[in-house]
């Protein structure tokens, strides 16, 4: 398409461009942009030193450690297991495959509060799983392990759903070529398939991690919410709000917003790297 083609497409015969773009921008401004900017403005009224003091106090630092640590481990588990699940769902045929495939999206569709009370019940000392962990000395509910499990649950679909389409689209001739050149199966996977999967795997990991960092509903029931030990950052915001410490809640909220923006940016760059806007 030459320059004239470019301009012809811009002056399309289709109606409504100005109206729909205008409405889109208006709606986004009212619902998203203005409230977000107001939050940053509010944080700036408190002054830099007060802000810095709030976001670096020991309880806040401990909450970042818990939140990011658990989110990282959860996303890592999901990267590994998500790869296996995606591989099995795309490559193998076995009874129940289609049902499991459909169920992978359950954590997207199930409200987080429901996930929270269910996982807590399963993992508590009398629960279906917890009763077998208790004698082993493993405390799954009301511990950091519980947070990791909840965050693994809510991040489960991301890696599967980013890796799956890439595996499906993989040209079988690549593998045939490698095999005919004498590569063993493991070698083919490592040298031919894995390089194709990396960007999708990394994107899925980043999406699961980003989601887990902000998660509240599924964690708040299972974590036990002990300050310094199992208190996640979103809960710290709620605690500050309940104590009418609006400046403190705002400061921590701004930290979380900045982190969200940074992750959104890196995820977009990953998408760009993997060559498609929508995985």
């Amino acid at each position, binding site marked *: 398409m030459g320059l004239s083609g470019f301009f012809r497409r811009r002056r399309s015969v289709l109606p409504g461009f100005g109206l729909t773009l205008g409405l889109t921008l208006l709606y986004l401004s009212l619902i998203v942009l203005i*409230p977000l900017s107001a939050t940053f403005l509010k944080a700036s009224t408190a002054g830099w030193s007060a802000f810095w003091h709030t976001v670096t106090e020991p309880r806040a630092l401990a909450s970042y450690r818990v939140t990011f640590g658990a989110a990282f481990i959860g996303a890592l588990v999901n990267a590994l297991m998500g790869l296996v699940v995606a591989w099995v769902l795309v490559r193998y045929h076995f009874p129940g495959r289609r049902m499991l495939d459909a169920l992978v999206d359950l954590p997207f569709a199930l*409200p987080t509060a429901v996930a929270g009370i269910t996982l807590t019940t399963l993992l508590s000392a009398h629960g279906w799983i917890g009763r077998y962990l208790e004698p082993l000395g493993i405390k799954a509910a009301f511990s950091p392990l519980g947070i990791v499990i909840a965050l693994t649950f809510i991040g489960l679909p991301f890696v599967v759903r980013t890796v799956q389409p890439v595996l499906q689209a993989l040209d079988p001739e690549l593998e045939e070529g490698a095999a005919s050149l004498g590569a063993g199966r493991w070698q083919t996977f490592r040298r031919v398939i894995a390089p194709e999967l990396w960007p999708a795997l990394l994107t899925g990991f980043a999406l699961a991690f980003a989601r887990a960092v902000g998660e509240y509903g599924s964690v708040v029931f299972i974590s036990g919410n002990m300050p310094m030990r199992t208190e996640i950052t979103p809960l710290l915001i709620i605690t500050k709000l309940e104590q009418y410490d609006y400046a403190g809640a705002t400061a921590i909220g701004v930290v979380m917003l900045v982190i969200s923006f940074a992750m959104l940016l890196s995820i977009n760059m990953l998408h760009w790297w993997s060559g498609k806007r929508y995985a």
Partner: protein
Amino acid sequence: MRESRLSEPPAVRRFLIAVAVLFLALFLLMPLAAVFTEALRKGVGAYLAALWEPDARAAIRLTLLTAAIAVPLNVVFGLVAAWAIGKFDFPGKHLLITLIDLPFSVSPVVSGLIYVLLFGLQGWFGPWLAAHHVKIIFAVPGIILATIFVTVPFVARELIPLMQAQGTEDEEAARVLGAGGWQMFWRVTLPNVKWGLLYGVMLCNARAMGEFGAVSVVSGHIRGQTTTLPLHIEILYNEYHAAAAFAVASLLACLALVTLAAKTLVEWKTSQSLREPAHEH
């Protein structure tokens, strides 16, 4: 010989299937089974009673009201945004898509917080609203606003790639044949995206009815007045009414299953329409 090089040895294959199935069974099937088992722990009578008591009914009403406002608004937004982004070229398009995705990346708690900072007593408009006796935070309007915020991307996200992929030829043909703007939209555009739209609506609705963090911040937890279903579940659970909490939770779990079924249906329909490219008008 060649065959074995193109697939894994049977033992590896069986091992991988076992690992995947075990993982999904533990993380997906077991929680799902647990919701319904716990819900019926005290019998069908207690189950129905938990759904029928006044606070539960009030929570169901508020949840339906919230979804009835948030979902249609975001459906209109999704259609409007997807039309502008999917059918036209303009600078800053990617930035706009990123902006639409933004509420996905914001923690639900922060999504609620930003509205407290706007409309709460300590917020920008707080004093003015208080002077005019308008209550948004710790009241129903705040719940609806926070729900709208967290569900902004759902419909748009489904429709944008779809409209982009479909291009503009069908609509251009309709225009050339003399169709007006609305006629083109109802007869050509909407039928083309209907399955994606259905799935977007289902996802948007599931999130609107199930949102917890954002709504929790703005609700104030006034029983029978500002508690949606997820907040009602939280209250019941924290007061050790586990069976009642799970009874209410089972409603939302059913909604999740219906959403997944809709997704499977939509994927099946889309793969069918790909197989036979002729339009079914």
